[in-house]
């Protein structure tokens, strides 16, 4: 009986180990899918406040992978002839908004004012001593 139980335990360990082995996902895929801050799970107020927090404390979010949903908005800076692409989020009362600038990895931007979901790495760039948050290497999610 003891031998049977011992064999059963060993077999269980082996099979359990095999089961876990099958679930292992390549590390690169895991890293690509890892999202540090998923704003799509939050409601309008929370998203607005979370983006506000990112804009106010950019250093705390640098390098983190962010997933965000909002409206695409493009603006043109005539002085530098540059285009700035942003994901705009409104609060519950629709009187306040926060924008998060982003750069698409493939450069294929959607139509203006369309709803978009982005995944990208949070970064900060400085213009005239003011830190501006930006999402880099962004990919659009359908």
């Amino acid at each position: 009986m003891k031998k049977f139980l011992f064999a059963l335990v060993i077999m269980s360990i082996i099979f359990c180990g095999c089961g876990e082995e099958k679930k292992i996902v390549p590390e690169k895929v895991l890293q690509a899918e890892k999202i540090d801050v998923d704003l799509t799970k939050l409601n309008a107020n929370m998203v607005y406040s979370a983006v506000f927090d990112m804009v106010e404390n950019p250093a705390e979010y640098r390098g983190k992978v962010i997933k965000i949903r909002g409206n695409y908005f493009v603006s043109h800076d005539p002085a530098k002839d540059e285009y700035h692409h942003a994901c705009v989020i409104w609060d519950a009362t629709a009187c306040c908004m926060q924008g998060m600038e982003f750069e698409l990895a493939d450069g294929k931007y959607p139509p203006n004012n369309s709803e978009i979901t982005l995944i990208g790495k949070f970064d900060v760039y400085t213009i005239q001593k003011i830190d501006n948050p930006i999402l880099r290497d962004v990919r659009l999610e359908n």
Partner: protein
Amino acid sequence: MLETLELYLEYPFVIHALIVGVLIALCSSLLGVTLVLKRFSLIGDGLAHVAFGALCVATVLNFANKMLLTLPVTIICAILILRGGQKVKIKGDAVIAMISVGSLAFGYLIMNIFAASSNLSGDVCATLFGSTSILTLTEQEVFLSVILSILMVAAFIIFYNKIFAVTFDEDFARAAGLNVDFYNLIISVVIAIIIVLSMNLVGSLLISAFIIFPALSAMKLFKTFRAVTICSVILSVICAFAGIIASILAGTPVGSTIVAVDALAFGICLAINEFGSAS
């Protein structure tokens, strides 16, 4: 729902909102009873509009911490209304109305003329209705709110007996040797601080409700000053906490939700009072 709440509580700004919300609720309800009994219920509304005007000036002048201008201006106006109002020919309610609408109009006017933001209507809406401002507090604002709240509670406890005397009968208090003007000055200063702090929570148009509802609800249940004050504090803290949690979960404007919960609590207290009287 609990999972959602658990997720939301991981964000530090939610914890900040709960801390500041509960502290403001506690402070505003302490003085709410005194204001209602002194028939100064609408002073919150008047001073909130003054604070709005001062906030507009601070915004136009690009103040990093707008409270540095808003707080002293509101304190000065509170003193003018509560003390000066008794000495001039214009009566108390007219002074409140005059300063209230004047500040509101002046603030909106200069915001329009010297607009510093591209989203003017959004800024004004956020200030008037609170919107999400309690969820967007900086650490500096949270720290300042905590310090001011502690000072206010301490002032109320230290001067409790004097405030009690001044609230019910100023003439008797004066005859008993109390410096009534001094204690009215303290009440004015504390009210002004509460108004400025509350603006972050419920917005300047809803502050009156935040101050008055818990006091009125408590008065329906209890009759003594101490019992009404304690009940008012408990009701206000519970309503603010429940309102913030409800607004975060439902995605509704924070200020309006808290006031709605306060109104609901008043309805329940009224029903309890009516039921008690009938039986």
